[in-house]
């Protein structure tokens, strides 16, 4: 679905960020992109939908090269969710904001109304359609932003630290949303994140470090490599950390992801 071959990239007047980076992502895969601060996780994500262009190398999305001629086509396939819910809310009402992408694609008005209604019901935001963004919470705004992307029916979703400004409850709701997109829509998901639970829910963790793909493994393997995880500024959830600590002390226990599993492992009923 996504192929990056020997990518080189640097920001103007800065050192090279990537020199020879290659990466393949299969259709329907849920991938977490992690790495130390400034490793270029976000930059990588922006290269995929042509918001930035590489100095060398090739990027293909669903067989289409991400070049000037095809960037419009590519962007139709890729939905990009940013970190700050405020900076991606363009219009003055929820309805107008969801319509923004449709308007850009010159979708006829009748179809627009149908599609907005459909996505609003699906994401349970139908009651807010006439509200101003300033009257919504961060989590609500981010849900509106997802609606604005889903209404364009993309095949790939990129979440660029999309949950980091949200409270715990909203974050959990967003994670449910990701699971839903992954399972029911078979969407390819790329998420730049520091959230341990979200990483563990994904299928594959790619570590970007020193301009390279430094590691490519399952999320659990990543957390088991404690030094690498720490370098990527990640901390395992308490239950996982605990099961790993117990294992280190000689206890025969498999790593578990949540506290219920841990309880069941310790006191089998």
């Amino acid at each position: 679905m996504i192929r990056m071959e020997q990518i080189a990239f640097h920001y103007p007047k800065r050192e090279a960020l990537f020199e020879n980076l290659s990466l393949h992502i299969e259709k329907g895969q849920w991938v977490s992109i992690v790495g130390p601060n400034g490793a270029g996780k976000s930059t990588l994500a922006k290269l995929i939908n042509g918001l930035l262009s590489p100095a060398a190398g090739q990027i293909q999305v669903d067989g289409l090269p991400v070049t000037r001629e095809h960037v419009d086509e590519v962007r139709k396939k890729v939905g990009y969710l940013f970190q700050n819910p405020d900076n991606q809310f363009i219009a003055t009402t929820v309805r107008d904001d969801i319509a923004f992408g449709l308007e850009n694609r010159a979708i006829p008005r009748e179809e627009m109304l149908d599609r907005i209604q459909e996505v609003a019901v699906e994401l349970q935001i139908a009651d807010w359609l006439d509200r101003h963004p300033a009257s919504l919470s961060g989590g609500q705004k981010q849900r509106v932003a997802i609606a604005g992307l889903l209404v364009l029916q993309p095949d790939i979703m990129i979440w660029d630290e999309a949950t980091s400004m949200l409270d715990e409850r909203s974050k959990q709701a967003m994670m449910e949303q990701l699971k839903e997109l992954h399972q029911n829509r078979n969407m390819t998901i790329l998420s730049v994140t520091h959230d341990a639970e979200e990483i563990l829910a994904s299928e594959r963790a790619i570590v970007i470090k020193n301009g390279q793909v430094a590691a490519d493994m399952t999320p659990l393997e990543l957390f088991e490599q404690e030094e690498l995880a720490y370098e990527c500024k990640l901390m395992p959830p308490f239950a996982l950390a605990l099961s790993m600590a117990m294992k280190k002390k000689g206890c025969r226990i498999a790593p578990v992801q949540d506290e219920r599993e841990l309880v069941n492992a310790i006191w089998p009923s």
Partner: protein
Amino acid sequence: MAIVTCRQLGYRYRDEDSSRAFALHGVNLELEQGLFYAVLGSTGSGKSTLLQHFNGIYQPSEGEIQVLDVTFQAGQKKKGLKELRSRVGLVFQFPEQQLFEETVEKDLMFGPIQFGKSKEAAREAASKALAEVGLSRELLERSPFELSGGQIRKVAIATVLASEPELIVLDEPTATLDPVSRHELIELLQELRRKEGRTVVMVTHRLDEVFCAADRFVLMKEGTITFTGTRQELLESPERLAEAGIVEPQMMTLALEASRRTGLPVAEMPCELDDWAEWLMNHSGLASGQSGQPAHASDPDDDNRTALGQPAAHEPIAEEEQAGELRPAGTGEEG
């Protein structure tokens, strides 16, 4: 000694639409000197509004609030609050967006100079504050905009520390930080409270990050306080968390479940990860049965451990009990 006392405190935004009349209502709260308070609540619970009463940015529309030796009463507008503000440092959300000088040092000196210190004294305060947040002196000459996310956040907190406040109030200081930086920041706040005896009040919506660090927990919902108490008391009333929209920390869920299985009180359970690992191995039969290594042999130094039922900073029990008596009247009853 109480450092902040709220009595029936209420606040109404001036020309706001009448739909949500009160941002705060009937708040009774007493904060003891030298403790670490975590204020938790979901969006719109009034936690930020409450904080901004602590140094007179907001002044009550109802009731009164006493901070150190200043009392704000509903209906009176107080001015000239420099003295109070030098003693109560308030760090707003995303403090890094509030830096404005060309160098870190100048930004750090801004507060002390405003509070009447000489340039020399302010410079000294600046480097001391930077050291307090664990950053190197080399950063003093740099522009704030060149620093990394975690560094810039620490500098922003140092701008308030530079005035050496007795009470430090922070509004979601950990928001958008990565987990490692978040952990470091909480440790820093604990240090300030432990070594320098300052009172720390921190707003967050993540209980897990402060569960072991804070001494007292305040839960807020729709402009009222629904719970104030120690970790032990919080463990006894998990339903308060759900009600305030706060996610229960994994450690708390585990402790409650472990107590159910073993019949032991949660107060005796540990706080630290390694202690937990041992505690579980000792109390589940899992370790001895399956690995053959006696788990308790590894750490004989039991006295230094913190348990869930204890305050975070190894205080004498007497002080703890005294503080307990001064808890606000409204504890756990409003909603």
